[in-house]
Each structure stands twice: as structure tokens, then as C-alpha cells.
């Protein structure tokens, strides 16, 4: 978070606000409600209180204006600059101006008034723009369906006004840090040749054109998918990716969620009602078999027959001995390899290799490429890895080995 230069702040934490005029885009009640909710976001995590007044000078005056409105910061017509606000202080200090040349909404459509007001009020209270993409104080307009203060926003406002009066201090979501060695994932899947990692509201992806991993909101591609996905896999020959959360799943083709989704996992895949959610899923392009990992069991679904294979569920240890009894995420890359990722919060360093994604130089490519007879599958769990021989369906002698020993660098 960044405080406004000079650390301006309100001396009195009991502030008033007034809506000077209303946009014709929304009903007065909808505008009142959006602005009230925006103030509540900030009052709920700080000692600040906000009281609406209907006449005279309030601490924070709110208005809808267009073009040059005589405050030395003219608006620029539709798009671009949506609104601005002034730092705490007398007269124009704290005031919020919305660009009336925008269309203001209370839904997904541009631009959600509640979302923009929540951001501008951060300025009215003394915050500047944050580089944290998950923060409300990030300068670009991003609306991912819900409006919530991130931990970055909360830390910022509490750095100015102190903690809230609530006995339990409210906290906000943290934005995942791409190189955090303690990072665990909700789901991982290939998507048209790329690999996408999912965590909370965000996706991360790497591809050869952008050396740094890209982190952004899932809603950027799939606005109607929920946050907190739990599993995902690609059915490559249908050009379809399926995302799972709870007992529901969505199928997408590119950026389009297919019609008729979400569906439930019971009718579509034949899971019993005792299965409440999926931990991880991966589909083997060669065999058309999809493995679902649920707690300590795994199910195998035949994409061609569209039914579960007999003999499942099995314990994970049966099909994938040594992997342990819970998988966070799994994906398939480069033919016959499965990568299984397992993580417990607080385990340091075990994911070190995963974010290189380019294969570690010491993997013998010929092994990986030489086709069926030389099938080897590498499983990485914490700081160890196993090599599983597909032909003999058994773990090779001498494993597990320490990742760092073999995959140095």
C-alpha cells in the first residue's frame, strides 16, 4: 500500500458525506446504496464512521460531473479516466468526482459504481495507488464480481487511522506472490498448450513470450466462473477445459463458458452423493482416461464411453503409490507425464522446481519422448520425487530421491 505524499489524514474520525447530485444511469436509491456500501467497507476495518447529510458542506462531497469541471483535472469523456478524489483536507479535500460521461451500473457492466466509489474513497481517506493487483487501491478498473478490501488496503488504512474497534480484527485476502515458495494451488490445468495455475481469485501463467509469470484475475478470461476453484482439466481433443468447485463444474472453450453450465458432477460423471468436491483432475490425452482425485481416493472416468471405469474408486496409493493421500492439483504436460503437486500451508521450498516449468535440464529428454516403451512418470511431493515406470506399473528402486540433488538449479 502507499500513503498519499505528506500523509494527509482526517483529524476527526467521525466524518460526514453528501451526494450533491445524481447520475441518471441509476435510481437515486441505487446510487445511495452503492455509496453507502463503499463507505461501510472502510468503516468496518477502521475507527472511521461516516454519516450522510443532505445539505450544507460535508467533509466528503460527492458529485457526477463531466469534462472540465473547474478543479484543474478535467475528465476525458467515455472510458479512460473514470473518477478521481482529493486527499483529506478542508473544502475540496476528500471530495469525490465521478465522470458523468461514463455509464454507471450496479452490475457486471461497465462501470460498477460501488467498485469505483470504494477505490476513490481510499484516496479521500489518505491512500495513494497500490501496485498490488488484488488491492482496491490498484489504479486500473477491475471488477471481478465482488468488491472486497484486500489485506493490502486494510493494512494501508490502519497505518493511518489504527485498527478497527471490532474485538476481532477483520482481515482481507492476500494476493498470491508468484515466487513465494509456500504458495499452494487450488487447481492447475493446461489450456491450449499453456499451463495455468489457479489460486483464490487469480490465475498465474507462464509462456515462452513472457519470461515473468503473469498474475491476473480469473474473471479477466471467465467473468462468470466463481473464485476459489478446486480442480480443472483439459480435454484437448474437444478443445474444452472443465473447472470444478463443490459439486458443480463449468466447461469452457477458449474464453466462452459453454451453454447449460454449471452442471453437477453426479449426473455428468456418476460420482456418488458422498463426493462433495473434487481436489484435482487430469485427463490423459492418449487414453482418454480422466483421473479425479478426491481426498485419499482416485476415480477414473472414460471420456469416450462417458462413464466411470469399473474398479474405482481406488486408494490413490494403489494407482500412484507414494503420492500420499491428498493431491492439491495435477496436470499433464508433454505426453505421458503427470505432474502431481501437493502442498501444505507452511511447507517451505517444496515447490521450488515447479515454477521453472521448463523441464529441469537433467531430465533425459529421450526418456520422456521415446514413446510408450520408455514411459516414465515423475511425481514431485514436497522436496522429494518418485519415478513411476508405466510399463511395470511400479515405482522404480531407489526412490524417492531428493529433488535438489538431481534437479540442481
Amino acid at each position, binding site marked *: 500500500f502507499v500513503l498519499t505524499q505528506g500523509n494527509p489524514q482526517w483529524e476527526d474520525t467521525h466524518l460526514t458525506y453528501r451526494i450533491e447530485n445524481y447520475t441518471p444511469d441509476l435510481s437515486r436509491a441505487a446510487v445511495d446504496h452503492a455509496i453507502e456500501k463503499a463507505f461501510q467497507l472502510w468503516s468496518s476495518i477502521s475507527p472511521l464512521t461516516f454519516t450522510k447529510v443532505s445539505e450544507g458542506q460535508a467533509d466528503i462531497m460527492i458529485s457526477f460531473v463531466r469534462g472540465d469541471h473547474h478543479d484543474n483535472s478535467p475528465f476525458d469523456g467515455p472510458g*479512460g*479516466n*473514470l473518477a478521481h478524489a482529493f486527499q483529506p483536507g478542508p473544502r475540496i479535500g476528500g471530495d469525490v468526482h465521478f465522470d458523468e460521461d461514463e455509464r454507471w451500473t450496479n452490475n457486471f457492466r461497465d462501470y460498477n459504481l460501488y467498485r469505483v466509489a470504494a477505490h476513490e474513497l481510499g*484516496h479521500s481517506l489518505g491512500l495513494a495507488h497500490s501496485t498490488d493487483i488484488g488491492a482496491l487501491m490498484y*489504479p486500473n*478498473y477491475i471488477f471481478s464480481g465482488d468488491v472486497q478490501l484486500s489485506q493490502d488496503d486494510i493494512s494501508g488504512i490502519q497505518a493511518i487511522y489504527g485498527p478497527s474497534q471490532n474485538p476481532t480484527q477483520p482481515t482481507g485476502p492476500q494476493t498470491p506472490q508468484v515466487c513465494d515458495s509456500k504458495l499452494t494451488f487450488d487447481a492447475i490445468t493446461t489450456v491450449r*498448450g499453456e499451463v495455468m495455475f489457479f489460486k483464490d481469485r487469480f490465475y498465474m501463467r507462464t509462456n515462452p*513470450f513472457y519470461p*515473468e509469470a503473469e498474475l491476473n484475475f480469473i474473471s479477466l478470461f471467465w467473468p462468470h466462473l466463481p473464485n476459489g476453484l478446486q480442480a480443472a482439466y483439459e480435454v484437448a481433443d474437444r478443445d474444452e477445459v472443465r473447472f470444478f468447485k463443490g459439486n458443480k463444474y463449468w466447461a469452457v472453450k477458449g474464453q466462452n463458458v459453454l451453454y447449460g453450465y454449471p452442471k453437477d458432477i453426479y449426473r455428468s460423471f456418476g460420482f456418488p452423493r458422498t463426493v462433495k468436491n473434487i481436489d484435482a483432475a487430469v485427463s490423459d490425452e492418449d487414453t482418454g482416461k480422466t483421473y479425479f482425485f478426491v481426498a485419499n481416493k482416485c476415480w477414473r472416468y472414460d471420456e469416450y464411453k462417458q462413464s466411470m471405469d469399473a474398479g474405482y474408486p481406488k486408494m490413490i496409493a494403489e494407482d500412484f503409490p507414494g503420492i500420499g493421500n491428498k493431491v492439491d492439483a495435477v496436470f499433464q504436460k508433454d505426453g505421458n507425464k503427470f505432474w502431481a503437486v501437493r502442498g501444505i500451508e507452511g511447507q517451505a521450498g517444496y515447490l521450488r522446481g515447479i515454477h521453472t516449468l521448463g523441464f529441469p535440464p537433467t531430465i533425459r529428454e529421450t526418456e520422456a519422448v521415446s514413446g510408450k516403451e520408455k514411459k516414465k512418470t515423475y511425481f514431485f511431493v514436497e522436496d522429494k520425487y518418485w519415478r513411476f515406470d508405466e510399463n511395470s506399473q511400479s515405482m522404480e528402486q531407489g526412490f524417492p530421491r531428493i529433488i535438489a540433488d538431481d534437479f540442481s538449479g
Partner: protein
Amino acid sequence: SHSFPTATSETQEQDVETVQKYLENYYNLKSDAKQVERQRNSDPVVEKLKQMQKFFGLKVTGKPDAETLNVMKQPRCGVPDMAQ
């Protein structure tokens, strides 16, 4: 082949205008006419562009590449990112 569309666009004259305006509005670039003339090789613009790219976690090149232009064209708040 199937792949996600990645934003690509050639730098064109209006992009130069976009960059200039953006850096004036949000990164304190001084806006006098001579500046515009020199912007192809000028330092202040390159420095401000680097500031902006660093702020948004983009590759810090000092060049208005497609990724940078993409971010500049997104709707945003009018308060500058860098203090006046």
C-alpha cells in the same frame, strides 16, 4: 493453432500520443511542446515509462510495447500514480 489471443499492436502515431498523455496525467511528465519533438529519443519519457512499467509489474523496457499500451488503454482512476 488454438491459443489465447495476446494483445499485439504496432506502435502508431496515436500510440505515441497515448503514451505522452498517460505519462503527463499519471506520472508527472512535464508537457511542453519541445518535449513532444524529442520523445523518440528523449530521456524523460523513457524514464517515466520505466516508472509506469515498474508500477504495473510489466517488463521494464522504457519502450511502449504492446503490453504497456494495453495497460495504458484500460479504464482507470484519474488520481496520478506518482505524487505531483
